[in-house]
């Protein structure tokens, strides 16, 4: 099989992994060498599905001994198989990188022979890039759960980021769809990584020359919609991953038995919207001071698909609104629908100089269609008097906006909610 045919198969097989970030690392350029990493990642291209192409995201091989039901590479699937040699991956990465197509490599793999054997191959690619080719670009490696401590240690030395996928939110889900995987193994791997990442950070603080270990941290991915687990369960799992394992990012990937329900059934909520709502909720957990239990209710453990989780929360807690933008605390401002974290920061600055009026919010490009009901400004804002109206929900959510996948996707990406 020629290189192009392999690339077609192994890129296709890797595209279901949602993470694409190339950010958060700080690998310096060196004189006469190739590559560096940026604090903010760069998307070199976008595919027609609106997704960022930042890394060469491929599998080393899509042969796999396991049979996870949600995965295209499972042993029982009839997809065509291919396998790169480590040298081929190294060459592709370097050639793409030199033409400025990519920020680096994201290498994952089906499990061949054993966890150790698979991990060894991944590590070899990263080692060759760093040592043989003096390459300082981004490398994200998959951490195969169950691989030896020693291999993980090597992987972290070469890679900017490592990720062990949690795959599904609960042990029950895993049992059902990926019986060979054990939540406990995945957690063990994550803990191992956490400890090493923290230790390396500590040593770096003491001496700049101490070796790095996955400086961009670890991330994971959860598949959404393959099992009946609720958004409340998914967010609980994500929240605990952030807190206990210090993950940089949890990625959510919509699984859809009929992947394009959104094209065929435009009136039904597609899993893509759910995926984006989860991303929005995820931002709220990390940067807006929300707690998991605030995002859903005991009666309805699912996120509202037609409005963003922050607006949904505000509608449930109207007694807290309207909020005076000239006086309210940062915490409260962050809870106003449409006021993103960046704008809250600006508002706090501006109001020290002069009082804020409606026109000021417009200049800050606050989405007023949503926000105007929830804020009091220095001038008269008639809409803030409508906060207790029964039909506020329908005013905030214009029917034609309900499933504006585009806007939802932008907000899910930027974290401005």
């Amino acid at each position, binding site marked *: 099989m020629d*290189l*192009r045919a392999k*690339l*077609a*198969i192994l*890129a*296709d097989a*890797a*595209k*279901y992994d949602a993470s694409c970030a190339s950010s958060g690392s700080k690998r310096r*350029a060196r004189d*006469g*060498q*190739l*590559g*560096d990493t940026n604090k*903010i990642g*760069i*998307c*070199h*291209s*976008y*595919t*027609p*599905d*609106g*997704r*960022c*192409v930042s890394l*060469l*995201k*491929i599998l080393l091989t899509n042969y796999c001994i396991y049979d996870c039901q949600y995965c295209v590479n499972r042993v029982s699937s*009839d997809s065509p198989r291919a396998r790169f040699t480590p040298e081929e991956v190294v060459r*592709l990465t370097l*050639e*793409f990188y*030199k*033409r*400025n*197509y990519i920020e680096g490599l994201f290498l994952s793999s089906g499990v061949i022979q054993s966890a150790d054997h698979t991990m060894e191959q991944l590590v070899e690619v990263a080692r060759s890039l760093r040592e043989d080719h*003096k390459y300082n670009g981004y490398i994200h490696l998959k951490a195969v759960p169950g691989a030896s401590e020693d291999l993980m240690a090597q992987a972290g030395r070469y890679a900017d980021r490592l990720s062990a996928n949690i795959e599904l939110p609960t042990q029950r889900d895993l049992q059902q769809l990926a019986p060979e995987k054990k939540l406990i193994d995945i957690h063990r791997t994550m803990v191992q990584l956490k400890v090493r990442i923290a230790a390396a950070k500590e040593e770096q603080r003491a001496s700049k020359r101490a070796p790095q270990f996955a400086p961009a941290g670890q991330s994971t991915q959860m598949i959404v919609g393959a099992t009946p687990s609720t958004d409340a369960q998914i967010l609980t799992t994500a929240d605990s991953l952030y807190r206990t394992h210090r993950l940089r990012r949890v990625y959510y990937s919509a699984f859809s*038995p*009929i*992947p*394009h329900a959104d*094209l065929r059934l435009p009136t039904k909520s597609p899993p*893509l919207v759910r995926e984006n709502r989860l991303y929005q909720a995820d931002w709220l957990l990390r940067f807006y001071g929300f707690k998991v239990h605030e995002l859903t209710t005991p009666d309805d453990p699912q996120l509202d698909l037609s409005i963003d989780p922050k607006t949904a929360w505000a509608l449930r807690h109207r007694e807290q609104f309207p909020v005076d933008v000239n006086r309210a605390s940062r915490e409260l401002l962050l809870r106003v629908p449409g006021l993103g974290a960046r704008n809250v920061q*600006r508002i706090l600055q*501006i109001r*020290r*100089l*002069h009082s*804020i009026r409606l026109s*000021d919010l417009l*200049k*800050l490009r606050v989405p007023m269609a949503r926000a105007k009901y929830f804020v009091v400004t220095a001038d008269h804002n008639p809409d803030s008097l409508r906060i207790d109206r029964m039909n506020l929900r329908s005013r905030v959510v214009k029917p034609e906006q309900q499933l504006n*996948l*585009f806007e939802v*996707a*932008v907000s899910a990406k930027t974290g401005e909610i």
Partner: protein
Amino acid sequence: MTNAVHIQRSFEAWRDAARKLIALDVPPDAIAWIDDDSSSLLPELDLPDAAPSAFQVPAEFVGFSRLVACFRDPQRWALLYRMLWRLTHGEKQLLQDATDDDTHRFFAMHRKVRLDRHKMTAFVRFRAVQSEDGSEPHYIAWHRPDHFILRLTAPFFQRRFASMKWTILTPDESVTWDGTDLRFSEGVPASQAPAGDELETLWRTYYANSFNPARLNLKMMRREMPVRHWATLPETEVIDDLIREAPRRVEEMVKKQTATKCKSTGSAADFLPPRISLPQLRDAIQGCRGCDLYCNATQAVFGEGPKDASIIFVGEQPGDQEDLAGKPFVGPSGHLLDEVMEEVGIPRDEVYVTNAVKHFKFEPRGTRRIHAKPNAREMAACKPWLASEISVIKPEIVVCLGSTAAQQLLGKQFRVTKSRGEWIKTDFAPRVMATVHPSSLLRMPDHDARVQARKMFTHDLNLVAKALRKMKASA
């Protein structure tokens, strides 16, 4: 009166002039800033060479101004100077007020230049130009930035591609890195960009395959990758094809997915229409999930022929061609059946043809689909359709072609080999006969056997023709 201040297009030139102007206490509205390469009728203001007096502005202002100075709009110099004037004349906090008109424009320009710089780091595409002496290639890119950002962005490429020799051409200016120094030179038009690079084929392959057709979101793509940059991005060549093919690919994905997840009920009876007529049955059958066969076939193939047909021919199941065409007996065995019917004188327009099972059952073998025999469960599940067809048409004669059809109508014990050509009376038709399926003739390996088999088949159909003629005579 207003005076002109000519400056070169650089932040440093503006800064030098502005320092002197502040020292001379020249207010913003007393001067017009003119780019060096444009002319003006205003009298030129003479700036003394003397060292300007020192004053303090926030470091943030200097940092941001560097980017604003690259904005492609002659007004930027005046804006910068006005801001500087205000900062040094009692409005130290100016930058904190993002809603002040000047500050707002200042930040907007800064944002656009920063974005343009970011997009340049993303969208520059080097093409390797092989050198004649076989040493490392020279990498050349042509890029059209929105603003004057080449000098601002060059250090990024210098750091990242330190080990390579490269050149970035833009319409305004160009820059070359030779491994030690950055050298700037004239801008060039797009026509001077190097021709393709063979790696681009691999890059397009990667791009096309990392796209998930089930998640089409063109608006997002165009927002992040503006169409004006597409000309220099080799991967965008395949976008049209990707979009055009997306629906078909999604359909395939759905089929693949559902292939492993068939949800059948066990009987076609669950899908029969409320009123039994041929048009209604024909409609309803496309929704049938009586057995798992619906998952992988293209469509259900319903019977065809007049509602008052006197003969029904029942085959086994649709074949590959029937499955695609949606009509029974259009493939090779259909042609053979037509031939023999004509030979023995069975008028085609009195015949209704259909199958015992309505969906194509097959095993995938590479790109081909090999016919597979329906099992007892599938036959039982599908029987209501055939029974309904017969009950609507009420034919005089039913001919079962092959053992599947025969067993479907005459019971499991029925053996075509033993009882072919015999007339049987049943409650759904006065005369039922079974013979072989015409496809069995086509499959015979040797010529003599085939001739013999065809003779026997013709003989059986002859019996049918005779019975038909006798029936008509007595009517």
